[in-house]
């Protein structure tokens, strides 16, 4: 089988694969925020730039991350990148685009899966047997929400919360900056519980209480309900955020690992987020399910 969901309406393929969603424009400039347009090179360069850049501040003196943003250096096919040897590159319905890995650590730029998990993620069992949770109109989850479609950061002047809004599925993340205690372990949520703090000029967000129902990408790369994510957002110039996620999940990986991409300011005059609600469901889901694809409800669903 060359492509999952074979025989689907082209409309769906267009929705999932649109350049807007994938965030990769052919012929785009080869620098982002004055850094090379390759995730690892960008990462090294951006961290160096962040040391000397003095970000604009809010009226209360915090780094001002507010505005509309869109991903660069990211794609939704695979966080491990897409190489020329990947058969899906030649797919007739929905060819994948060649792309470097967004993983900057470990050095081999692969997800350090434990042996049992490697055959489930990485275009494995998840890809072959399960419906991509995002296609089923579930939330893209963290961090995938930030690499699909534009998003917006709001910082109320009271400094007690940061609100992150996403056009993708029209959902929100409330990031508590008020040092509230963690949530009880029995409560799991698709987007988890987010607690933030400022470390110098960087917004650091701890995400816990994840239900593990979401994927990183179209390839079915995943974490479980034991995952702990740490996101770091740092302005490296007035219009570019270095976005980094450290992923920890002792049930799934042999060590923590790290993803990086850029969030670039949307500067079109009058730009606003639109409503892409999706709650009414994707009409092709029933046809995909007739093809044998099952709903994905996390690793625990398989009875491990």
């Amino acid at each position, binding site marked *: 089988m060359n492509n999952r969901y074979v025989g689907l309406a082209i409309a769906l393929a267009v929705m999932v694969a649109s350049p807007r969603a994938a965030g990769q424009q052919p012929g785009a400039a080869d620098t982002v925020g004055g850094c090379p347009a390759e995730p690892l090179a960008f990462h090294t360069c951006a961290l160096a730039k962040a040391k000397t850049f003095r970000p604009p501040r809010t009226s209360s003196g915090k780094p001002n991350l507010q505005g509309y943003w869109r991903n660069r250096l990211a794609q939704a096919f695979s966080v491990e990148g897409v190489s020329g040897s990947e058969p899906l590159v030649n797919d007739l319905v929905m060819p994948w685009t060649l792309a470097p890995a967004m993983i900057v650590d470990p050095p081999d730029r692969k997800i350090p899966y434990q042996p049992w998990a490697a055959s489930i993620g990485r275009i494995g069992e998840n890809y072959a047997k399960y419906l991509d949770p995002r296609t089923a109109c579930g*939330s893209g989850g963290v961090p995938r929400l930030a690499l699909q479609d534009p998003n917006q950061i709001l910082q109320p002047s009271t400094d007690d919360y940061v609100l992150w809004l996403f056009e993708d599925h*029209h959902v929100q993340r409330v990031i508590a900056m008020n040092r509230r205690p963690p949530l009880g372990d029995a409560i799991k949520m698709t987007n988890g519980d987010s607690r933030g703090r400022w470390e110098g000029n960087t917004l650091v967000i701890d995400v816990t209480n994840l239900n593990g129902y979401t994927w990183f990408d179209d390839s079915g790369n995943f974490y479980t309900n034991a995952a702990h994510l740490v996101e770091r957002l740092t302005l490296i110039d007035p219009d570019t955020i270095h976005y980094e996620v450290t992923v920890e999940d002792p049930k799934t990986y042999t060590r923590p690992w790290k993803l990086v991409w850029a969030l670039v300011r949307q500067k079109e005059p009058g730009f*606003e987020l639109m409503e892409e*609600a999706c709650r009414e469901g994707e009409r092709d889901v029933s046809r995909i399910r007739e093809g044998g694809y099952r709903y994905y409800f996390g690793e625990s669903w398989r009875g491990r």
Partner: protein
Amino acid sequence: MRHGFMCAIAAAVLVAAPIAAAAQGSALPRTADGRPNLQGIWQVLNTAAWDIQDHQARLGVPAGQGVVEGNELPYRPEALVKKRQNFDNRATADPESKGYLPGLPRIMYMPFPFQIFQTRDHVAVAFEYDRGVRTIYTNGTPHPEGSINWWMGDSRGRWEGNTLVVDVVHFTDQTWFDRAGNFHSDGLHLVERFTLAGPDHINYEVTVEDPAVFIGPWKMSMPLYRRKERNVRLLEYDPGLLMDEEQAERERKKTK
């Protein structure tokens, strides 16, 4: 008995408080730019999500006094027929029962908390129900032009003294006002008024206009109460996901 008496006193204080505080407007909490500070986690304490009008108890539905001024809705005759059909078929016909976004104004009075955030240019509302969100632009921009059908409509707000006044258009005809089948067309036009009536109460008022369904405008109003629990926060209720999960579980049992 004594316990009941104490509750009665508490209720009286709860009711009297907003009026008293409204009289001394200067004591209202304000943001750095001097606007009334509506931020926080809020929730209604009423039965409007089931029925915005007076209704007796039904199985699973608490009895309730309506939130509609004068109780009656000025339906056009043919629309009233449709409302009655909706009521009869409500268990499966209510779009909310399918996991869709409840739309406005219904999401404001679902029995779930929501959180208000304010910046200079926005009042944003994040909902626990369905992880929904609405952005009310307060930067003076007009509604976008065109034929737009959004579940949550398009909200543009302005401050009139201590009241946030919000104009909402660009709806779908796919949402209802309540589980009782009260409905509207995609020509729905809302004007909402949020008035901070004290540190822990907002008076919320909605004027509804929809010439295709109603012969004239009508109004509903209700208090929003601040959630005061220590450590309170928005959790997640995702009806579509929960429905899919139940269906998957049924299929799993069948194949066993």
